């Protein structure tokens, strides 16, 4: 058996220890007889309550990274520690909002949002209360009894957000969740996410290829390099919130990010 490594620097209790530590992550996929390295030496950490955007062009392995964090994939090497413990398979402490529609089509909006609590075994009245609360958080109170097929793409993503927030995950993982929405809906969803994470002090890892999205949302941006994927640069974003899209500092950041992503 492999001796478990001690956590770096043996944290003293109560110290501002990062919530999530990713160290030297490597992921290799077998593709038609040979091996393709998708992630190599990828390291970063996330602090409690932080909103981190993982920015990169398509094919840089950012979705693979998110799947590893969620527990859907196992890393080939490296460690993922959540509160000092290595993460295993999928768990409600690391929930995902997918890009695609992943709601249960046979459940209503309300039942979809209450699904995780039901699995947890929460009694019906508390579940109902929680569902009502999160329905109002995402502005869907009147749509509780609708089926997913009857609501728009933006509303579906609101439901997807509510059904994981209700489980109070340690980290919320978002995989280009607004990429398939129209521009206006996307901006609405971005503001919604910001207001909710402010209210719930939720830690969020948000994968995107959209520079403006990263600039609006992030406390910190991790720029990913390609082939194999790694964290090329860390860009703290100190702009005040709410961020105005006309603010010269914001525009500066965007054009800087654009340049960085292009190289």
């Amino acid at each position, binding site marked *: 058996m492999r001796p478990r490594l001690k956590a770096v620097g043996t944290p003293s209790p109560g110290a501002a220890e990062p919530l999530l530590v990713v160290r030297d992550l490597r992921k290799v996929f077998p593709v038609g007889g040979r091996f393709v390295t998708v992630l190599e030496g990828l390291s970063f950490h996330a602090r409690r309550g932080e909103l981190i955007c993982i920015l990169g062009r398509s094919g840089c392995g950012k979705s693979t990274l998110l799947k590893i964090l969620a*527990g859907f994939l196992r890393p080939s090497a490296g460690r993922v520690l959540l509160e000092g413990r290595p993460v295993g398979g999928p768990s409600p402490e*690391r929930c995902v909002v997918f890009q695609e529609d992943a709601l249960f089509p046979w459940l209503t909006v309300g039942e979809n949002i209450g699904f995780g609590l039901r699995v947890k075994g929460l009694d019906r009245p508390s579940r109902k209360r929680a569902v009502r609360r999160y329905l109002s958080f995402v502005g869907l109170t009147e749509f509780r009894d609708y089926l997913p097929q009857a609501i728009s793409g933006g509303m579906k993503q609101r439901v997807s957000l509510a059904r994981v927030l209700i489980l109070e995950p340690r980290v919320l993982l978002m995989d280009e969740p607004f990429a398939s929405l129209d521009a206006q809906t996307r901006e609405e969803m971005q503001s919604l996410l910001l207001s909710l994470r402010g209210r719930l002090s939720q830690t969020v890892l948000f994968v995107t290829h959209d520079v403006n999205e990263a600039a609006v949302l992030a406390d910190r941006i991790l720029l990913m390099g390609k082939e194999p994927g790694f964290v090329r640069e860390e860009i703290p974003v100190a702009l005040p919130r709410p961020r105005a899209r006309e603010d010269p500092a914001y525009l500066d950041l965007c054009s800087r990010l654009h340049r960085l992503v292009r190289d």
Partner: protein
Amino acid sequence: MKSTLLPWVIPAAALLAWALAGRLELIPAYLLPPPEDVGRAALRYVFGSPGEAPYAGRFLQDARASLVRVTCGFALAVAVGIPLGILSGRLAPVQGLLGATVNGLRAVPGISWLPLAMVWFGIGMGTTVFLVALAAFFPVYLNAAAGARRVDPLLLQAGAMMGVRRFRGTFAILLPAAMPHIVTGLRLGLGLSWAYLVLGELTGVPDGLGAVIMDARMLGRIDIIVVGMILIAVMGRGSDLLLTSSLRVCFKSARRLS
């Protein structure tokens, strides 16, 4: 025209054509009796008192016998077909184990099992239930397998991250997600059950709707043959409605996905 009338247009036209053909003596009565004769025979068969005439009042007894056979055979097919189908849709080894055999057996026409079934189970209940179960098994199994195979992996991932373990996921996610296919398989299977019921009952059992048809043929009672056919159609349609509505009552996923 109201759409509620639409389904009745073809039956009404057929009935009219049938009545005209009799009236104009286009078809002699010994080949196809006119509808009023068939109607009278049907009334006597269903509501008459036993002994008043041949076949009078036998309907309840025949229907009960047939229903028991269809129910037993179909239930057997469902009890085996759905679990096996789900397993082989999800687990490659099970699919590998069963796939070729099931498809091979499926190529054997159900009717060719009849002689063997009669040797094994004798005439009556056993043979009929066997044939019904065999015939209904294939669509039930194949559709359950297809449904289980086509479940969006994203739904299973979503379930897993919300804390669903494998066993529970089968009932909380897999079954409801596969429900549209499962319903299709059940309906096809139930339809086939009625077909094979008649086959099983043609072999000389004393009661059942298929037996009545065969019996009437030997006595040259064309009217009773037609009555039997119509009653099988009615009961087949009725059982289909019962099946779909009870699925709707029992499963949200069946209620909301069609």
